[in-house]
């Protein structure tokens, strides 16, 4: 019986196929896949769709206004990727305040698959700051291991 590495070879000839209809500029039916190829790891750089992830609104110290000054990203190097960071919160007047970083490049052109660290200076003073990470379509593969917000907050007075 044909085998590959001890497994039935049929296993490495399988792929998940998704029948779709594309309503874009050239409407058409397709078979699509997230597997990219029958063997190996897929690409994590979608050319048509970006990605976004928001962390929780951070109650650093209840009823106190913190200032976030730096974001530290620990990530796995899958190759170069461009991201933006957005910090958002609210002020005393009930208005939403945001600040978005310029484009930040992570990773190396020749991916190492190692865990790397990037420091990004980004400042926002607001209630309950929230960090959102955005990756645009075709901006590269992104893989985050941890994120740290660094800043300061008023001491609570008794």
């Amino acid at each position, binding site marked *: 019986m044909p085998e590959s590495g001890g497994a039935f070879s049929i296993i490495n000839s399988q*792929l998940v*196929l998704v029948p779709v209809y594309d309503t874009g500029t050239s409407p*058409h039916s397709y078979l699509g896949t997230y597997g990219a190829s029958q063997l190996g790891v897929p690409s994590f750089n979608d050319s048509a769709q970006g990605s976004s992830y928001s962390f929780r609104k951070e109650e650093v110290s209840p009823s106190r206004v913190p200032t976030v000054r730096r974001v530290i990203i620990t990530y796995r190097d899958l190759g170069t990727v461009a991201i933006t960071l957005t910090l958002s919160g609210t002020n005393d007047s009930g208005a939403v305040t945001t600040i978005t970083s310029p484009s930040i490049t992570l990773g190396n052109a020749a991916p190492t698959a190692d865990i790397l660290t990037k420091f990004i200076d980004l400042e926002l003073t607001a209630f309950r700051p929230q960090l959102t990470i955005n990756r645009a379509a075709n901006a590269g593969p992104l893989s985050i291991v941890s*994120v740290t917000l660094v800043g300061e907050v008023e*001491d609570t007075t008794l």
Partner: protein
Amino acid sequence: MKTFEIVYSPQEGPWGGLHVQAPPNIIPPRFTPAMNDFVLRYAELRSRPAFTTITTGAIATPSNASVSGIGSFYSRGGWWHTFTFKDGDANPFYELNNGPPQSWITIGGSAATSAGVPVSWAAFRGVLYWTDSLAHVSAWDGAAAAAITDIAFTGAVSPPIAGQTTFGSRFIGELANHLLLAYTVEQPVGGAATIYRQRIRWSNDGFEPYLSGVFGNNLGTAGATFDSTINVNAGVVDMLDAPDVITGMMMLGRVGYILRSNGITEVSPTGKGTAPFTFNHLWSSQQGIGNLYPFGTAQYGNMGVLISTEQIYKLEPYNINPIGGTARDAILTDLNTASGPVRACIVPMFSFGYIYPIYMLFINQTNTSSIIYIYSFEDNNWVKWTMPTQYVTGLPSMVYLGGNAGTGRGGSKYA
């Protein structure tokens, strides 16, 4: 002023995924109140695998038509065959030919398919059977020059003639060596079709369409029938005592489950010739846990997923558990805005190098885009993906794309 460092890292387990069941300032830090197109596998926040639409080459769609079903089955001749169904077509059945180059070839003889309705299929004793909510069940053994339509009918004459009734169904499966059809559509030859939303039909034990080695010769005889007047081992039941309709079917090993909109019925083999099954309603009430989305269910081995009014559940033999978790409300809200049937599947991996056992729920939005919710069975979390310009037309499936060159068929033989 005092300094702070807030770390987001799933040090006590995997990332939690989507959480909409509490204000975003009090959810645990490993959860997210909003996200799109990330995958949380192996405790990393990673942009999801790229979705590649295959427009040319061997596995582009057959005749560029919408595909309402895709899969692979193992035929009695020892070959794997990959097949698709064209949506709403009179000649809808295609097989992936080996070539080279690989291409889709039409296998004639199938009944037409309904527009916009996913095809239900099952492989049984080396033969592929399929039905599409019309009054026909078709079959192909992987070797015959054409498929056979109308393998399910009353009476003894094949193909059926006046006085006989053909039937198909919305759901097809196999339990204890019987073919089962649930939510049947039945049509007297030359007459009009009638839908029986609470009916289940089953074949005789070991439904065998072959006689003298010819596929289709045994239909309507004691060896291959759904008519209990020909073989007492075949039969029919109408679950009129349940106040709802059949919305799915799962065969989880030794016991099967008929899913209803407000309940679940257990189907147990008895081993008795005249009454091969018992049907026990786990509950039969005006309201209760059931399945609302006929093609939002999926099965993998001895477990399946169903979507009830108030929750998403994982169903195992004699066990049902909620899995909607902290993303439940987001999922049910998007389901309420779905256009057309939702589609779902459970896959153990996307490809051999990416093992990721997940349930995927595809929600069509106004026939222009899709929202996809992914549940990881290993991490017990939900993520949300989107397809901004695409919607799913058939049930996704893991298919076999291998083959030996020069054999003419899409399969590869394992001696």
